[in-house]
């Protein structure tokens, strides 16, 4: 029995690999997605190595009123902000916060969504009702209002932002997972695994989740982008990341009062958000096309 299991697993793995490879090839054909990916890889490297390039105390957070509100120049390519901090340094360094918030909230939402969604899809009945009704409720409250209330409740910090934003992501992940699980649940290989006496959580983990990966991957990419935007909107409403963190949304919200007189304070963080989200969206769209079995040629 063990050997059969292994064989199935190997087969799965083999199939998975070839699918991944095929997807990869198709993804590379999508020009937008490639640009998006390159951008994201660079951004990720930057976010990780931020501390090597810049020193927090002397470059990111150091105010020098003498050079406040200077236009972009050779010394400060993105200009300086109202407290004399270098905007370029803050934008580059800030990538990590935006990514932490975007990725963190999506990962949290994904975990919650996967668990609740697969439970609902797998067991059906009461579980399904419970999860889906909860989703309906969350869905009918405008996300941003809900997020503001939650941040008010938890106090402004990166963690509470992540939690507030993860809720709206969780609902969409739960929906996707549930739908996929329901279609896969009754398929033969799942039934046979069940017959072999595998515990439910193992079945879900090994057979069901891998099979609903593709819509989830797409959703993850797109959600990271939309959560970065939402985070900046929350900053705009005054409940974002606390100062003086160089998070893009916070910088934008702070810089917006200088949008006419010193537009660079607002343009560059805005541009950073825009390019990142654009890259993520291009990637997501590319992945969607590449993973869509209907679009195979």
């Amino acid at each position: 029995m063990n050997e059969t299991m292994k064989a199935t697993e190997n087969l799965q793995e083999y199939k998975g690999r070839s699918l991944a490879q095929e997807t990869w090839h198709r993804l590379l054909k999508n020009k937008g997605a490639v640009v998006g990916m390159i951008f994201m890889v660079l951004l990720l490297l930057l976010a990780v190595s931020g501390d090597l390039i810049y020193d927090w105390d002397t470059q990111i957070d150091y105010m020098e009123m003498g050079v406040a509100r200077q236009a972009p120049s050779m010394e400060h390519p993105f200009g300086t902000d109202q407290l004399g901090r270098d905007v370029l340094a803050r934008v580059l360094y800030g990538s990590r916060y935006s990514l932490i918030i975007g990725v963190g909230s999506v990962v949290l939402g994904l975990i919650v969504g996967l668990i609740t969604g697969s439970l609902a899809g797998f067991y059906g009945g009461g579980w399904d009702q419970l999860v889906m009704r909860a989703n309906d409720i969350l869905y009918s409250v405008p996300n941003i209002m809900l997020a503001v209330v939650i941040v008010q409740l938890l106090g402004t910090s990166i963690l509470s932002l992540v939690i507030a934003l993860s809720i709206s992501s969780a609902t969409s992940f739960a929906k996707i997972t549930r739908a996929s699980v329901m279609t896969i649940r009754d398929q033969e290989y799942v039934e046979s695994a069940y017959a072999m006496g595998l515990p439910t959580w193992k079945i879900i983990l090994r057979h069901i989740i891998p099979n609903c990966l593709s819509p989830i991957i797409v959703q993850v990419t797109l959600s990271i982008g939309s959560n970065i935007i939402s985070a900046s909107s929350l900053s705009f409403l005054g409940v974002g990341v606390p100062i003086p963190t160089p998070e893009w949304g916070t910088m934008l919200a702070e810089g917006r009062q200088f949008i006419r007189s010193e537009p660079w304070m607002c343009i560059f963080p805005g541009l950073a958000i825009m390019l990142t989200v654009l890259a993520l969206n291009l990637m997501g769209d590319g992945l969607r096309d590449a993973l869509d079995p209907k679009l195979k040629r």
Partner: protein
Amino acid sequence: MKRILAMLLTLVMVFALVACSSGNNGGTNNGGSSNNGGSTGGEEGSTPGVQGTLTIGIASDINELDPQQQNDQINNNCIALTHQTLVFLANENNDYLPSLAESWEWTDDTHLVFHLVENATFSDGTPFNADDVVFTYEKAMDPDRSVVAATLSLVESVEKIDEYTVQFVTSSYSNELLAVLAGYPLVILSEDAYNSGMENPHYVGTGRYIFDEWVPGQYVRFVKNENYWGDDPGVSDVIEFRPIIEAASRVAALQSGDIDVCIDPPINELSFLEEDEDITVHNQAGTRLFYLGFNCESEPFNNQTLRQAIACAINRQEIIDGVLDGYGQAQTTVVNRGVWSFYDDMEGFDYDVERAKELLAEAGYSEGELTVTLYISNGSPYTSIAPMIMQYLGEIGVGVDIQQFDEATLKTQCQDGNQQMFLWRWNVIDRLDEIYTELFSTDYATNYHQYSDPYVDDMAKQVLTEKDRDTREQLSIELQEYLVEACPQVPLYTADLVIAYDKNLKGEYLFGGGNHNWSWAYIDLSGSEA
């Protein structure tokens, strides 16, 4: 691919450039407001050469027009149009001018007598007399019917002597009773209106304008009182306040002619407004004091030397330059600039990093040992000041953890004493008691410093009741010196009043603290058409 990216970038930059190459072309074609079919616009009203509607862009909506149920500046700006007080506070020299009272005098230490004007009428045509005054103050002193009852705590009763004479009986002499009575929450209401059973009797007043309509979030509108009793009625037919929360939008609205007056224009956009030849930017000394407060009751700031160390670490002038572009004045004392007996010549604790380090050591802390919380509310200027304070304290080795709240929460947190340091402001026009008692007296609700000192409590009372002007001034100065030394707060600066309006605005009556009276304001069209 590169091309697309480049194209994208260029697009954004072009867009941004168009957005920012502003000013000069925007200003030339917006005299009245040629661009919109709205109710504002430069149309002439019933008075020749005067624009019919004066529109004032405000930073937040009004919330209550029942005078005794509120004390918000923006509500008071509206009530100033529809109602009048017994005495009128002039915007210069802190003078009190006759309004509904012609004259007044303290007959002895506990009796203040007012002689009322005899020809005044309410907007509904009924005459004004002593009964209305008695009615108004009896209502105001009843805590169930008024939220400002506490300001009249010294008043024992208000009595009618004859049809046009009223006497206030107080428990002791007060230097500031007149100032309290000049406040807009204590405008005179119509007893007849309240007895008639009409809805919203508080709208009936003796003022130059009559409340017309409030559409929350959009506008509150007042129309001219055609039967105004005095000889200087309003000029504009209609005065409208429009809440425009986003500061940049408010400036844009002024430049495009949607509004005629822009309250609180952001400092950094003033240069655009100054370039605009249709707009006047006015600034004058303000009365709004911004400060860094300490919670003097609990660790670590129950240590006076530590508070002094922090005070020495802060560079006030740099904050003013950085945050206000210079539109403000540094000060050492706790009394708002412009208030009588303001005294700023004490040595105090000026910016001196070496001294700060010495004081820190004297207070028993080594560098790097202490990290404190700084509670601030969202929004300008606190979010700009806070990181600067963080940096200043960093230089003497004190860490700062900034925590942001909305205003309601910040107030609650400070009342509960959860803060270690906080940023706040206090606006005082002319009453010392609003500083000494409300900020520093033991257990007062607004004493966010949690400061308690029997000497200060006692001195505050003396300053309030001392009749001799010179002695009183001396007491006040002594108290200021004491409070600066005790250092429950580090006064940072008094912000200037900055306001921008249509260059044809006439008859404005402005106060440095923002409690303006728009009763006589209008847009003069004769100049612009000639």
